[in-house]
Structure formats: structure tokens, C-alpha cells
């Protein structure tokens, strides 16, 4: 990349204009030049510069993209005007309409035009655009070098008018080039009643954007409109002397034509720049600030001082753009640079997405049309009979290209994934289709404002669109403002699409989505490195060292507490305020402020003595409900906070960790002792696993199961870690399964030959998850993110050399285990178990009738209900 050796961004006036302002000359009044002017004015450029604009065409500015609409009769000329000539006068811009610039004298800083006039500049912007490429064809030019009448490009308003005139007088047209522009021209001419043939030398239409299969589908659709398509051939000669009569194909055949349209590529207009000594490769070379480059002259004067270029005539980082979106981005950067509105503005190139209707067919294309490298993944959905062909190219888990033909409803989501490298759905087909579950694009737009979107937090569509209207333009911002998607999370997709829809292209991404916790702007790996290097042992130390302004953040402390306990199993300095209430009192808070108590019951195995103690405790403390959990334990619900220590003492059983972001429980089936199908002792292995991993904090809750045969009675296939006996002492270890808000069968990580090996492999996986998993990231997201291949290489083949460290770290964490219910004997903080709702008669949750299933035997339901109905006593207004 050449960088202009300019020291000052915008040189001061050397000669001083009449107004004392700097003189800005723009050469070219097309899409890029005109847009640059608008952006300049929007930044106060009108007061900074005396502006002169040269335009070849005798018009103000107009929207070139809509010329195909004019040709097809869908738009009229007035409808495509961007800024009429008066606009220039009104804004004090000197528009030299229809005046061609013939030279730039960089040393003297002036331009010379076709009228012979000389115009000095302090800043020069080249926006000379591009021209239709004229393919090498015998007879296409006359002796004077001009094109044979009837042969025309399709670039400007005059071309379009010429084509419309020709359509009235003639019958047959040949369009050379079946790309975007060619198909637009063919469609328009066909609509004007001409007999149209498209000649396209590559093997399929729109080959720059589409793969062969999509090109074939498009061809069928185009031919369906009555346009003839010939691919894999070209015109070798043009016939006719005074006016074109047709083209000759390489095989010698002749296609009669009254009009020949050149749409086989464009050539950037670089003549002026080349003559001025500026760097020109395929186009005018610019740097990230849109500055032109060029070697200084012998005299040492640089030809590039104050010279910029923008638009289709520009080559930036090796790329020449032909679509409008990049030109607009360039114009914005250039205006920022020239006016100083954003002194750091830089153009870094564009990831282009083409969205258009070609010959009446919706097309959206971005990035690669087809796989390029051996590892590239191609996802395709084709319905040729409906003219639908959808494809996506995925490289290393990132979307690098997508083509949608006939159905472009997924474009916004794909464009976002493409431009920002967002994580992709595990089921790749979901890139192209809405599969089950969530509402589709159309459905989302059709929802009523009072339609519930997040049932966990009772958020309606109206609340979400209202948040966007109120200024939230990121999905995370809206989720924070409305709490939508913050419950079970299953509606996140719909929330995202609604925000996208409501933001209408102005969607932003909150950078904090990549941070481990919202209050510390670091990814997990960065955060871990800082914590280790600075030896930060407490949550407050992390905030002080790493949070912006050293500011603590309540929403971040729980995640940090978990991480610090993982990183410093022994040295962690506990701050109780950093814990969620569940982790302060080792029980799960319920909707009425009471708690649920789940004693440990390893592998779901208990004894008569334990059951008696549980029953006695339930009676003594008047628990609201006794419930057998999904994890094969017994839950005592409705325990008062102040009773927790006594309940634990009376139970005499360790905590079951049913409240933490930690290893919860290991479910088992009855295994081989009693079951006539059991292949191995799943019950004992479950107990051993639970003993090993009890209480370990993990990024999100972690559930395990062990089954004695593939009948899977304890549902091991859908656990974070599932172990399945397959006979002869062998066990399969599955990871990343889930049967909650998401349902996913785990991936088979390994098949091993002993229970000891199961414990080793599971330990390595759990420790890797502890160290690499993001906060609240369940294994069903973690495993696909890592990739099963990578997990196997790291954990089984030790490809990363991590295994010894994982084993050692886990050993240390296991050794640091201490049953938290021991804290009941000696509270850690004053009032640790003091109720937080002193005046509310608890419990407010309706009790089950005494003696009824789940109800206790001694509760006096009458007095409880009366107390609850009385509500908060006193003046808690």
C-alpha cells in the first residue's frame, strides 16, 4: 500500500481564495462524487471550502442504480434525481455541468478543463468513476475510434435514453455479458418489447456472485421471462457499417441485432490520474484515508499533496468496488478526513452484499459464491421448481459467503453473520431456513405489538420495538433494557430478529457480548491472563485493577467469584458480597423468598435412615413441599432462610449443590446389580463421579448421568457429561448433551476400557470447561464452539500439551472441596441466615393440603393462608 507522504491532512490555502476558504475541486459528479459532497456539507464542509464540481453529464446528480428501473419502465427520470442543479447553487457549490476535465497539474495545483479554463485547488477529489469495457471484437469501432452506432454501454442517463429510443425503433437486442448489469439491461429491454439475447462467456450467469447450480436456477427464471440466454460463448465480431446489424459468434454463426449492449465488465477511468503522475494500478491507488499516492517529482514536489480519490475509479487495498455501499462508506471516510470531523477516520474496505432483483428474481449475494479451500463447508438448499436456490459457504466456523436466489428472507441474518463473523447455528441448515421452534422472519414482522415474545419476563413485541425506538440499537442493549431473552433464553433468536427488524439496518453490536462479564471489558482468555499475571485474588481486586474507572459491577461479581475460585482454589479471597444469594446461603431462592434444600444423594442412591431424617426435617420445619427432583434427589421446598442451618444440622447430609453454577448431580440407572439388562455397574461409577466432582464450580450448571446399557434409562445421552456402558468393561463418554431449554444429544468424546479411565477423561473435560468456558455457557454451546475434533485432540491425544496441567488443576480443586453446609455451624457473616423479608408472613406460595401428595403432615393450612392473605403488616405502602 502506498501512503501519501503528506504531513498535513488538508493543506492550508496557498493563494487564498476570494473568501479565504480552501478551494476544493471534485472531478466527477456520479454516485461517489455527489455523495462525497453531501457528506461534506453534513459536516460543515460548506463553510470550510469553496467547492467546484465538474460533471461530464449535463445534469445534477441522479441514482444510477435505478437506471434499470427507468429502462424497464418502472421508474421515470424525475424519480431518480438525487440533487437537481438548483441544489448545487443553493449550497454555494459551483457546478460545471457537462464540462470535462482534461488535465491535472499537480505541481501548480490546478485542473484544466475542455473549455480551456484553469481552476486552482487546495484539495482535489477524483471521482471519475468507470466506463463500460469494450470487449475485443472486430468491427466494434469505426475508423475514428468511436463505437459503431447501435453499440452502447449501460452506464448513464444518456445510455438509457438511447436504449429506450432504440427500443421504439427496433426489434432485436443482444446483451454482451450476463452479469448483474447485463441481466438488468436484458430485463428492461425485454419489458420494452424487444427480442433479447444475452451472450455470456463464462459457463453460468452472474458467475461472480453465483455458483453453477444457482446460476442454472437463475437462467431458468430469466428464460421464463422470454430472454434467450447463451452461455460459454462470446461475440468475436460486430457486423454493420453505418449501424450495427448483429454479432458473430466464434463458431461463425451470426446473431442479428439492432442494438448491442456492452455489459461485460467496466474499466475504471484512470486517464487523468495517470497523466498527473498518481499511482495507478487497476485503478487509482488510495490509502485508508482515501489519499492518492505517487512519487515526488525531480524537483521534490509531491504530486499527491491534497489529492484524494473516491468511488469506482479507486483501488483500495487491492480491491476495486463496483457496488454502491462501499462507495458510500468511502465518501463518509473522505468527508470525515477532509473536514476533520473525525480525524481518525479510516476506510478498511467493505464486505459487500449485493441485494437486487435480477429479471424479476430476488438475489442476495455476499462473499464467496462457492467453496475455495479444501476445508470449506457448503450448505445448500435447492428447490429448482420454485426458482429457489440458497447456499452458504462456511470456513472455520465463520460465514464467508452466501447466495440467496428466489427467497431472500434470510438476508439480514446472513449479512450480519457475514459482516461481523458471528457464531453460526450448530445446525447449519438454520443459516438458510427457519427450522422449527422460533418464529420465522415473516412471522416476526406479522406479530402484534402485544404478542408475548419472552414469556419468562413477560416482554411483548411492542416493548422490544419500543426499546429500539427509544435508542437501543443492539440486541444486547434491548435485552438489558427489557429483560427479554434473559430467562430460559429460548426466545433469543426471535428477540434478535425483532431488534434487527425494528432497527431497520441501524443494528449495532454491543462489544460486551464478547466479554466474560459485562463490567470488565475483557474476553475470558484475556481476563484469565490478567488475573494470573497480577495475582488478583478477590473480586474487588479484579474490579480495581481491570474495570473501567475501577468501578465494581453487581452483575459481574458472581461470574468473577466463580472464575477466581476456579483459578485460585486455595488462595481465593472470598468476599460474600460477590456471591449470589444462593451461594451465600447454599440453597436455591424461591419466588417467595424461601429456599429449597436438596441434600446430596450420590448417584440417586439413598438409605432408609436418610429418608427418615428427611421426613423428620420436613415435619419439624414445616416445609411447603417435598419433591423428588429430576436429578434423583429429594427437594425440601419452602424452607425459611433462618432455618437453613438447623435444617442442615438435623439432616446430617452434605449439600447437593442444587443451587450453584457447579456440578450438580450424577443420575444413574440401577446398573448390573439388579437390572437384567445392565452391562456394567453404572450406579457405582455414578457415585464415584459425584464423589470426585462434587461442588466443583463450573461456568454454568453441569449435570451428569451414567447408564448401564444403551437403553439410557438415566438419560445419559442428554447430559453435559453422559457415560454409557457398552459391555466388556467398556464405557462411552458423551459430552455437550442437554435436555433443558435446548435439547441436544451429546457428542461421543471417547470410548474407554475402564471406570478409572472414565473418571480421568471426564475430569479433563470438566477442567477444560472450567478454564475455557464462558460465564453461563452450557456445555451444549461450549462443545460445538470448541469442536469435537479439537476436544479429542486436546483431551485424548494431548495435542496441545495441556493434559498434565488440567489433571493437576483439577486435583487441586477437588482437594479444596469442603461441604458448604458446614457453614451452618458458624455463620460466615453476621446475619448470614437472617430473613430478608421480616414482615411478610412466609410462605406466600400456596401450600398443598396437609396429607396431600407433596404436602406435609403437620402444617395447619388454614392459619397459613390467613397469614398470607393479611399481606405485609404495618405501613409498607
Amino acid at each position, binding site marked *: 500500500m502506498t501512503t501519501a507522504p503528506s504531513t498535513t491532512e488538508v493543506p492550508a490555502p496557498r493563494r487564498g481564495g476570494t473568501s479565504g476558504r480552501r478551494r476544493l475541486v471534485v472531478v466527477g459528479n456520479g454516485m461517489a462524487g455527489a455523495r462525497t459532497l453531501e457528506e461534506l456539507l453534513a459536516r460543515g464542509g460548506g463553510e470550510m471550502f469553496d467547492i467546484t464540481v465538474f460533471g461530464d453529464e449535463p445534469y445534477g446528480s441522479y441514482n444510477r442504480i435505478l437506471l434499470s428501473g427507468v429502462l424497464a419502465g418502472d421508474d421515470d427520470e424525475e424519480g431518480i434525481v438525487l440533487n437537481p442543479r438548483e441544489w448545487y447553487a443553493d449550497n454555494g457549490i459551483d457546478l460545471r455541468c457537462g464540462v470535462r476535465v482534461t488535465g491535472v497539474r499537480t505541481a501548480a495545483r490546478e485542473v484544466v478543463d475542455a473549455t480551456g479554463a484553469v481552476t486552482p485547488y487546495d484539495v482535489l477529489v477524483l471521482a471519475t468513476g468507470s466506463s463500460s469495457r469494450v470487449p475485443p471484437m472486430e468491427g466494434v469501432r469505426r475508423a475514428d475510434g468511436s463505437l459503431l452506432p447501435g453499440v452502447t454501454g449501460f452506464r448513464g442517463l444518456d445510455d438509457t435514453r438511447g436504449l429506450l429510443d432504440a427500443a421504439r425503433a427496433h426489434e432485436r437486442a443482444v446483451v454482451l455479458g450476463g452479469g448483474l448489469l447485463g441481466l438488468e439491461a436484458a430485463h428492461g429491454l425485454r419489458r420494452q418489447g424487444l427480442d433479447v439475447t444475452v451472450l455470456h462467456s463464462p459457463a453460468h450467469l452472474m458467475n461472480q456472485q453465483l455458483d453453477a447450480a444457482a446460476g442454472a436456477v437463475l437462467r431458468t427464471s430469466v428464460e421464463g421471462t422470454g430472454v434467450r440466454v447463451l452461455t460459454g460463448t462470446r461475440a468475436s465480431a460486430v457486423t454493420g457499417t453505418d449501424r450495427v446489424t448483429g454479432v458473430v459468434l466464434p463458431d461463425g454463426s451470426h446473431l442479428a441485432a439492432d442494438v448491442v449492449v456492452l455489459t461485460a465488465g467496466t474499466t475504471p477511468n484512470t486517464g487523468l490520474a495517470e497523466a498527473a503522475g498518481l499511482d495507478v494500478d487497476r485503478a487509482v491507488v488510495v490509502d485508508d484515508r482515501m489519499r492518492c499516492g505517487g512519487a515526488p517529482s525531480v524537483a521534490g514536489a509531491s504530486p499527491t499533496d491534497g489529492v484524494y480519490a473516491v468511488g469506482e475509479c479507486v483501488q483500495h487495498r487491492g480491491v476495486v468496488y463496483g457496488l454502491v455501499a462501499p462507495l458510500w462508506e468511502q465518501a463518509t471516510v473522505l468527508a470525515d478526513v477532509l473536514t476533520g470531523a473525525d480525524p481518525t477516520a479510516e476506510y478498511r474496505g467493505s464486505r459487500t452484499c449485493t441485494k437486487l432483483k435480477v429479471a424479476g428474481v430476488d438475489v442476495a449475494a455476499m462473499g464467496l459464491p462457492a467453496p475455495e479451500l479444501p476445508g470449506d463447508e457448503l450448505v445448500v438448499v435447492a428447490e429448482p421448481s420454485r426458482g429457489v436456490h440458497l447456499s452458504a459457504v462456511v470456513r472455520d466456523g465463520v460465514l464467508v459467503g452466501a447466495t440467496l436466489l428466489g427467497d431472500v428472507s434470510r438476508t439480514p441474518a446472513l449479512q450480519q453473520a457475514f459482516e461481523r463473523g458471528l457464531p453460526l447455528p450448530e445446525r447449519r441448515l438454520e443459516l438458510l431456513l427457519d427450522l422449527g421452534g422460533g418464529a420465522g422472519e415473516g412471522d416476526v414482522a406479522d406479530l402484534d405489538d402485544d404478542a408475548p415474545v419472552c414469556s419468562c419476563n413477560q416482554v411483548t413485541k411492542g416493548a422490544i420495538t419500543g426499546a429500539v425506538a427509544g435508542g437501543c440499537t443492539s440486541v444486547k442493549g434491548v435485552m438489558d433494557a427489557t429483560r427479554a431473552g434473559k*430467562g430460559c433464553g429460548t426466545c433469543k433468536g426471535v428477540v434478535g430478529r425483532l431488534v434487527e427488524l425494528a432497527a431497520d439496518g441501524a443494528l449495532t453490536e454491543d462489544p460486551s457480548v464478547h466479554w466474560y462479564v459485562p463490567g470488565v471489558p475483557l474476553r475470558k482468555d484475556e481476563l484469565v491472563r490478567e488475573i494470573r499475571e497480577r495475582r488478583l485474588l478477590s473480586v474487588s481486586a479484579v474490579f480495581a485493577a481491570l474495570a473501567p474507572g475501577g468501578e465494581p459491577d453487581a*452483575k459481574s*461479581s458472581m461470574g468473577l467469584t466463580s472464575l477466581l475460585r476456579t483459578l485460585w482454589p486455595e488462595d481465593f479471597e472470598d468476599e*460474600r458480597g460477590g*456471591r449470589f444469594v444462593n451461594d451465600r446461603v447454599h440453597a436455591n431462592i424461591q419466588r417467595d423468598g424461601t429456599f429449597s434444600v436438596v441434600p446430596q444423594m450420590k448417584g440417586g442412591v439413598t438409605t432408609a435412615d436418610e429418608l427418615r431424617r428427611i421426613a423428620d426435617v420436613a415435619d419439624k420445619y414445616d416445609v411447603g413441599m417435598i419433591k423428588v427432583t429430576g436429578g434423583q434427589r429429594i427437594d425440601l421446598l419452602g424452607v425459611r432462610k433462618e432455618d437453613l442451618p438447623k435444617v442442615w444440622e438435623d439432616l446430617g447430609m452434605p449439600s447437593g449443590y442444587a443451587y450453584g453454577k457447579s456440578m450438580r448431580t450424577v443420575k444413574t440407572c440401577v446398573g448390573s446389580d439388579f437390572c437384567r439388562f445392565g452391562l456394567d455397574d453404572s450406579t457405582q461409577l455414578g457415585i464415584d463421579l459425584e464423589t470426585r466432582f462434587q461442588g466443583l464450580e463450573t461456568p454454568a450448571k453441569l449435570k451428569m448421568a451414567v447408564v448401564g446399557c444403551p437403553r439410557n434409562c438415566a438419560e445419559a445421552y442428554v447430559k453435559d457429561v453422559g457415560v454409557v456402558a457398552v459391555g466388556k468393561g467398556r464405557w462411552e463418554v458423551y459430552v455437550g448433551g442437554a435436555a433443558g431449554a435446548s435439547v441436544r444429544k451429546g457428542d461421543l468424546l471417547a470410548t474407554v476400557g475402564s471406570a478409572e479411565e472414565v473418571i480421568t477423561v471426564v475430569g479433563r473435560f470438566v477442567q477444560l470447561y472450567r478454564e475455557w468456558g464462558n460465564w453461563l455457557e452450557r456445555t451444549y454451546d461450549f462443545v460445538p464452539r470448541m469442536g469435537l475434533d479439537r476436544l479429542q485432540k486436546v483431551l485424548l491425544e494431548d495435542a496441545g500439551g495441556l493434559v498434565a496441567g488440567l489433571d493437576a488443576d483439577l486435583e487441586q480443586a477437588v482437594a479444596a472441596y469442603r461441604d458448604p453446609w458446614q457453614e451452618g455451624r458458624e455463620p460466615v457473616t453476621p446475619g448470614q441466615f437472617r430473613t430478608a*423479608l421480616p*414482615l411478610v408472613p412466609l410462605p406466600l406460595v400456596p401450600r398443598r393440603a396437609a396429607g396431600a401428595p407433596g404436602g406435609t403432615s403437620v402444617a395447619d393450612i388454614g392459619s397459613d393462608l390467613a397469614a398470607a392473605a393479611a399481606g*405485609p403488616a404495618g*405501613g409498607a405502602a
Partner: protein
Amino acid sequence: MSALAGVAAAPGHLAVDVGPLTDFAVGEGRAVVVAGRQVAVFRHADDRLSALDAVCPHAGGPLADGQVDDRVVVCPLHLAVWELRTGRSCSGQEDVAAHAAEVVDGRVLVRLGG
């Protein structure tokens, strides 16, 4: 100080003694009764105190069991957020009343606001 303890008259005008500072754990909240009203009192790391109504207006959650930083409290039930100084909701719920709390001679005094 002790003369103030438990005095229920004229809420909003009298400071009520709700116990020794040592009853309040740093970084945590405790629920107390002030003139018949439930108030969540939070002790910050610098021994500054914040006080809000103790019941979240969204679903009756116990705010004293919430997590705090210097600015806000997060309700433990549905993670709704209120500003400690003003009681203003940061997550679209109703506001709660904020109260004045301070330490005098090692005792925590709360004066009802709004």
C-alpha cells in the same frame, strides 16, 4: 440514639436506630424494620450505607438478598435492577423508595424517604 429505636411516629422525619454496624456484612444487604416499613440496608466496602424499600415491586423479591455495587442493586429473583441512591428502576420496573442511612457512633440509623 436508643431513644429513637422503634419509634414509629412521623416517618420521614425521624432517624431510627436499626442496630450496630457490626450486624451488617460488607457488600451484603440486611432487611430491617423502620417505623413499620421494611427497608433493605446495604453496607458498602467503604462503610457507606444505602437503603431502599425491601420488596421488589415486580414480583415481591427480597432486595436485601440482592447483589450490589456502588450504584445499583440486582434483585435475586429476576435480576431486575434499581439505583441505590434514587430507587429508580434501571430495568423497566416501578421505582422503589430510597431512604437515608448513616452510621453514628457505631449504630446504623435509617430515616425514611419518599
